C-alpha cells in the first residue's frame, strides 16, 4: 500500500525544531512541501541560515521519523525561494512568545535592503515577550544562534532573544 501525501504531512506535523523545541518545522516554514516525485514521495525542506548547524540534524530527524512510521520518502533540499521568517505561522509566533523569544517582524521589502541597513536599530520596536513593554534595547545583533538577536527589557529588566526577520 502506498502512503498518501496527507499521511506524510500528518506524520511530520509535530516534528519539533532541534534548537527551539517548542516550535515545529512546519510552524517555522522549513517543511515546505510533500509531493509525488518520479521515484516516490518527496519531502521538501528549505534551509534557514546558510550556516545553521541544525539543518543536518533536521534532515536526520525527518528521515528517522518517516522510517519509524514506515513511510518511504526522499528528503529534498530546495534553496529557492529562499526561506523567510514571513513563512512562520501565527501559531508558531505565539509559541515562540510564550517560550520567551520575541517573534520576528515582517521582513522589509527587497528594494529597501540597503536603506534598512543604515536605519538605526532602535527604529524597530521589539516588544518584550515577558511583560509586553516596547521599552527594549538591543544588546547584540547576534544571539545564541544566527537567527536570534539579544535584547534587554528596560522595564522588567529581563534579557530576551529576538527571532530576527530574515
Amino acid at each position, binding site marked *: 500500500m502506498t502512503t498518501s501525501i496527507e499521511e506524510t504531512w500528518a506524520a511530520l506535523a509535530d516534528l519539533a525544531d532541534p534548537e527551539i523545541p517548542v516550535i515545529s518545522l512546519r510552524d517555522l516554514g522549513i517543511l515546505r512541501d510533500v509531493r509525488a516525485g518520479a521515484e516516490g514521495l518527496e519531502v521538501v525542506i528549505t534551509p534557514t*541560515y*546558510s*550556516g*545553521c548547524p541544525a539543518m543536518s540534524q533536521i534532515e536526520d530527524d525527518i528521515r528517522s521519523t518517516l522510517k519509524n512510521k514506515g513511510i518511504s520518502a526522499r528528503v529534498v533540499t530546495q*534553496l529557492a525561494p*529562499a526561506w523567510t521568517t514571513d513563512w512562520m505561522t501565527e501559531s508558531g509566533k505565539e509559541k515562540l512568545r510564550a517560550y520567551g523569544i520575541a517573534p520576528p517582524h515582517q521582513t522589509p521589502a527587497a528594494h529597501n*535592503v540597503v536603506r534598512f541597513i*543604515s536605519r538605526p*536599530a532602535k527604529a524597530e520596536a521589539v516588544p518584550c515577550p515577558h511583560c509586553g513593554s516596547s521599552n527594549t534595547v538591543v544588546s*547584540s545583533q547576534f544571539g545564541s544562534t544566527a537567527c536570534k538577536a539579544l535584547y534587554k527589557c528596560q522595564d522588567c529588566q529581563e534579557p530576551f532573544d529576538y527571532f530576527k526577520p530574515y
Partner: protein
Amino acid sequence: MSTATDYLLHLADNALVLGQRNAEWCGHGPILEEDIALSNVSLDLIGQARLLYQLVASLQGGDATEDKLAYFRDTGEFRNYTLLELPHSGPLSGYAHASLDYGTTIVRNFLYSALMALLWEALEKSANADLAAIASKSLKEVRYHLRHSRDWLVRLGDGTDESHARTQAALDHLMPYTQEFWTGSPAEAAAFAAGIGVDLQTLKADWDGIVDGALTEATLKRPLLEGYVSEGKKGLHSEHLGFLLAEMQSLARAHPNGNW
C-alpha cells in the same frame, strides 16, 4: 579560458577565507556578545561557501566534492580577494602585544559586507538559477553582517582617542586593498559576458555611498587610494594565505578519508 566555475570559486573562496579569519576570534572576543556575533558571522560565511562549493562540485562532476575544493587546493588555486586573508593585526596593534586588533576586523568586515550587500542583490538576477538562489539567501545574511560592522565602525571611530586612532589606522591599512574590487579579472569578465556575473563598476557609486556615509558618522577620514593593487582573485596572494590554509587544511590532509 575562464568558466563559470572560476567565478563561483572566487565567490566561494571569499566567503571561506573571511569565515576562517573571523573564526579566529572564537573564544577571544573583546566581549562575550562580540565573540558570539563573529562566530555567527563566520557560520554564515562558511555556510555560503559550502553552498557555492557544492554548486561548483556539481558542475565539475566526477569525484569533485565541497571538501576537496576547500581542503585540497593550494594557495595559488584560491581566488579570494587579498583583503580577506590578511591577519587581524593593524599597523598600530604591533606584533609584540596584539595579533588580534578589533578595529582591523571591523573595518574589513564593513568594507566587504558593503560590497556583498550590493553584489548579492545584483546576483539575484544571475542567469545561473542556482547562483541566484544562493544570492537571495546570502543577501539576507550579509544585511546583518553589514549592520553589525557598521554599528561598531561608528562606535570605535567616534569613540575614545585610542579607538579612533586604531580604527583610522586600520582603515588606512585596508582601504587600498579594496582597489581589487574594482579591477577586473578574466573570471569576472567571462561570468559577466555569460550573464552569470555582474559588472562590478555598476556597484561602485552605491558602495562609495555606503562607505562615505558610515565614515562620516564614524568621524573617520577616507584615505586616498594609490599604489599597489592586490590580485588575490587571480591567484596571486600575500604570504598570509598559506598560513591560514595550513591551519584550516591540516586536519583534513592528515586524515584524507576521515569521516566525522
